[in-house]
């Protein structure tokens, strides 16, 4: 039952992507729904097992290592699987209005969307270094293909730059994998942890892999490709890219750091990674304050918020672990809501230049409300999900007397409030200027509803934190390490 569900997570979207290209036009919408809607249902039996046994493991098609593929799910991967399922359903609701599957644009969009879903699922299930490489490549290529569906020169330029950097990054990662295999003769993420001894070669391999992944995760100062790529992609694509695609690279860094390289003495590197995070928070927030377009503000906010995920390295405690995991999910939901709303606004006005957004609250109340709700979570006001994540980070820093990190986290929240209030003030408190007689195309109500539901989920996460934190605690490698 669990094994069938795991296989379904990967092969259902993959099959759907292929079939979409074959079936008659009028069946395409039904096919998309048939693939996306069951995904959360497939997660239920897996969740039940992980809740009881902490982890599920299976050898795909019964082939054992070393040539077979082993899948492993623990609470961390499960949490990301849930986030992904949520995003696929709700962001998909907007994508259905923006790219109706029966149209030629829909035919370009939906196979890639499903391929991306399959890639993310396969990545989260993978338990060996090489499969992570293959699936990460799948995720990147599908994601860049989705950016390119926009067909505007700016988007294609951004997609190309992203692609070149991503290809280089995967080569760095692959080089690291090759070195590790040459050293210990295994690719299993967890077994490698037992076999690898700290030394020059494993350390080199680890640095190569992590550098490659940080490029893909757009961690400051390797973030240069992200704002243009996420800011120019079509609305639903931006949402998915910012909410989950960049995070899966961080997820692999966590796996490498806390499982494979567990217990290596690397205090300088820990601090360095934390400082990168600090740089991301300050730099991303500062640039978000000066952007002229709504989607660019949100994209730079992603650069900033990704920085928090790096604070786990210097803090490295159970509390910080829960904080990072929770922040990952709550940011994913809030950011998806922001991008969905921004996509609706852009489609309605034909522009997302900030000075054209004055007085928008009277014209697109639902989308502006979504922006406001998601902002509440992103800047970390109680009782939202974002608040819990940042509060746990503060507690973790307090526990260790790390005053510098505490100040940084507080400042990051303040800066987030500044750049988000700048948008809200413009849309809600500035009268509409008369120079622009831009006509307004109402966004489809389903698209606005999609954003609203995501924003509500980002807030509601604050009330459902207990089970998530319990599960995250069970995945903390300090607890389950054999």
């Amino acid at each position, binding site marked *: 039952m669990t094994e069938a569900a795991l296989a379904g997570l990967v092969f259902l979207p993959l099959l759907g992507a292929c079939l979409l290209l074959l079936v008659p036009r009028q069946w395409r919408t039904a096919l998309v729904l048939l693939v996306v809607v069951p995904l959360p249902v497939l997660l239920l039996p897996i969740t039940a097992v992980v809740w009881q046994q902490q982890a599920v493991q299976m050898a795909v098609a019964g082939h054992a290592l070393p040539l077979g593929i082993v899948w492993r799910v623990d609470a961390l991967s499960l949490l990301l699987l849930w986030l992904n399922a949520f995003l696929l359903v709700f962001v998909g609701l907007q994508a259905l209005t923006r790219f109706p599957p029966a149209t030629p644009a829909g035919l370009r969009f939906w196979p890639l969307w499903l391929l991306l879903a399959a890639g993310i699922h396969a990545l989260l299930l993978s338990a060996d270094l090489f499969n992570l490489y293959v699936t990460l490549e799948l995720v990147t290529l599908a994601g860049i293909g989705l950016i390119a569906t926009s067909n505007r020169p700016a988007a294609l330029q951004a997609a*190309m730059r992203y*692609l070149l950097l991503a290809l280089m990054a995967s080569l760095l990662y692959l080089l690291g994998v090759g070195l590790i295999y040459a050293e210990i003769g295994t690719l299993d993420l967890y077994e490698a942890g037992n076999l690898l001894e700290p030394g020059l070669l494993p350390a080199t391999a680890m640095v190569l892999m992590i550098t490659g992944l940080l490029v893909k995760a757009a961690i400051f100062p390797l973030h240069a490709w992200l704002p243009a790529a996420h*800011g120019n992609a079509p609305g639903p694509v931006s949402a998915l890219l910012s909410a989950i695609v960049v995070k899966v690279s961080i997820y692999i860094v966590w796996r490498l750091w806390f499982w494979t390289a567990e217990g290596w003495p690397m205090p300088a590197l820990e601090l360095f990674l934390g400082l990168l995070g600090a740089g991301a928070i300050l730099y991303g927030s500062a640039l978000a304050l000066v952007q002229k377009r709504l989607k660019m503000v949100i994209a730079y906010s992603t650069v900033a918020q990704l920085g928090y995920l790096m604070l786990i390295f210097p803090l490295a405690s159970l509390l910080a672990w829960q904080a990072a995991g929770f922040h990952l999910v709550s940011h994913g939901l809030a950011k998806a809501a922001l991008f969905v709303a921004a996509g609706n606004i852009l489609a309605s006005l034909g522009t997302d230049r900030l000075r054209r957004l004055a007085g928008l609250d009277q014209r697109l109340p639902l989308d502006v409300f979504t922006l406001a709700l998601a902002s509440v979570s992103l800047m970390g006001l109680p009782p939202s999900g974002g608040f819990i994540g940042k509060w746990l980070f503060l507690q973790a820093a307090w526990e260790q007397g790390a005053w510098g990190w505490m100040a940084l986290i507080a400042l990051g929240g303040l800066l987030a409030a500044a750049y988000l209030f700048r948008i809200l003030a413009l849309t809600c408190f500035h009268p509409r200027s008369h120079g622009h007689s831009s006509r307004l195309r109402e966004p489809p109500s389903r698209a606005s509803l999609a954003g609203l539901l995501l924003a509500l989920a980002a807030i509601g996460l604050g009330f459902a934190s207990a089970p998530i934190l319990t599960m995250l605690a069970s995945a903390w490698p300090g607890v389950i390490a054999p």
Partner: protein
Amino acid sequence: MSSAVLFVIVAALLFGIGVYGLIIAGHLLRKLFAINIMGNAIFILMVAASGPLDGKPDALPQALVLTGIVIAVSATAFALALMVRLYQLTGQASLHNNEGGDD
């Protein structure tokens, strides 16, 4: 042992050429060539590490390299298609710095 060293030196040289090309080249086609050269350097290194140093070679790295080649080919094909589309739209096959884009 000396042949292994030769492999490693060749791989290191190729990798360096690739990185240099990726940074220096303006035309996207050249950048793609550079990335492919870097990829080949890594494949050589992986094959050399599995090499028949003492008896029979290890099959797994060879399988990995094969998979890597398939991925490199498909990624390159995708990048070429993207480059052609970019050329059709802008008349140029190179990258510029216009981050925010126009609306």
